């Protein structure tokens, strides 16, 4: 039997990177899934138009937690234009797992928070 989730996904779920809050973040947005209850908040610090710090906090399933953890790693040091251009598939690819259609919304919840946060900033 093949493993359902990759080692990368499981590692980021069990040991999430950049978990926590920032003091006085430039961007903060919380997204949630109204039915399953996953809730993820993304916070960013910007220097000019570059992400200098990224944190997340939330109670979510393995997929959404790992995706949030990987997302914060992806966007640090990146311009907000590049962050805004990040696609769904790019984030899902970092999980290195076969994410079924029904679970894509889990993986994309942190990206939803990020996008809403950026749009509020603009």
């Amino acid at each position, binding site marked *: 039997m093949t493993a359902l989730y990759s080692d990368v996904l499981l590692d980021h779920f*069990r040991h999430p990177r950049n978990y926590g809050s920032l003091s006085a973040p430039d961007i903060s947005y*919380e997204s949630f899934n*109204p*039915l*399953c*209850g*996953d*809730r993820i908040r993304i916070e960013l610090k910007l220097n000019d138009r570059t992400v200098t710090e990224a944190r997340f906090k939330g*109670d979510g399933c393995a997929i959404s937690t790992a995706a949030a953890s990987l997302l914060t790693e992806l966007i640090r040091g990146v311009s907000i234009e590049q962050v805004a251009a990040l696609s769904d598939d790019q984030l899902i690819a970092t999980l290195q797992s076969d994410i079924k259609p029904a679970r894509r919304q889990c993986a994309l919840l942190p990206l939803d928070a990020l996008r809403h946060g950026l749009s509020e900033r603009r």
Partner: protein
Amino acid sequence: MEELFEDIEKLARAEKRVAMATLVATRGTSPKREGAKMWIGEEGRILGSVTIGGCVDARVIAESEQALSSSASRLVEMKLADEDAWEIGFSCAGDLDVLIEPFDLTKSSMLDLYRTVRASVDHGKAAAIATSLNDSLQKLLIVEGGEISGTLGSPELDREARTVALDLMRKRISSIVSLGADSSPVFFEVHGPPPTLIVFGAGHVSMPLVSLAHDLGLRTVVVDGRPRFATRERFPDVDELLIGIPSEIAETMTYTSSTFVVLTAHDYKYDLPVLKVVLPARPAYVGLLGSRRRGKAIKEFLKDGGMDQSLLDQLHVPTGLDIGADTAAEIALSILAEAVAIKSGRTAVSLKERR
């Protein structure tokens, strides 16, 4: 409890001297528990009761007036023979010990003592007043956490009393305990914040759980990340509905010896992060909805994350007593029955079997 503090403040505004009658011991059965109070003012005001009224209270009033006249405390034993109990309509036949203490409200430190207790309770911390029954002027205040003030006469007695008080606060029981080499009787009067039930998860079991807890006099809080579930319509009796990241909300809450926590989400994404916050805070009860197998997996995950076994042992999973619960309401009853038993230090056997 609030009634007691309100009574004291009412008397402080109206009376100069009062007698405080405290039920310190019961033998047989009694309608009120140890710690019940009655206040008799020198000007005639009467507040509270150590029983449910009737002849016993009348005698307490008479004894209190004598205590006020003599300015001396007295411990009064009241025997209720079965016939007397029947005649006066007293529903229970038992013996009562009542401590009656006169106080001058214009200079007594008693007011300060009870105001300190109230402040502690208002901040979510239990407190106990230990009173020597050999000399009721000797009092020691113990606040949950271990801070003490006053004395029972010696540092050794105070240390012993502190240990006893912390245990009684956990069980929320007022009682006489003998202390020291000469077994001096000391009454521990325990006060605490109203018991609170915090439910993580706004699912269908939570609804009767909150309603039943409300009927039992508990303050209730429901936490969920889903606004569609955590609604007033679903939880008409709840005191507080909190929507957000459950573990983050859990971090902001106060957990005391009178806090019950039940996790009903049946979802690891709430259960794991919330348990990481709640178990180290050591509330009176932590119950997790789920099977034994699921509980084992949750515990192993937390243990792998570094949680101490002693904390994991506090977790009640499956939550509830074995009463054959099937419906949501029956499960709620089973959970609350276990929680109350744990808090009271009981094993939850049938009363018929109790020895």
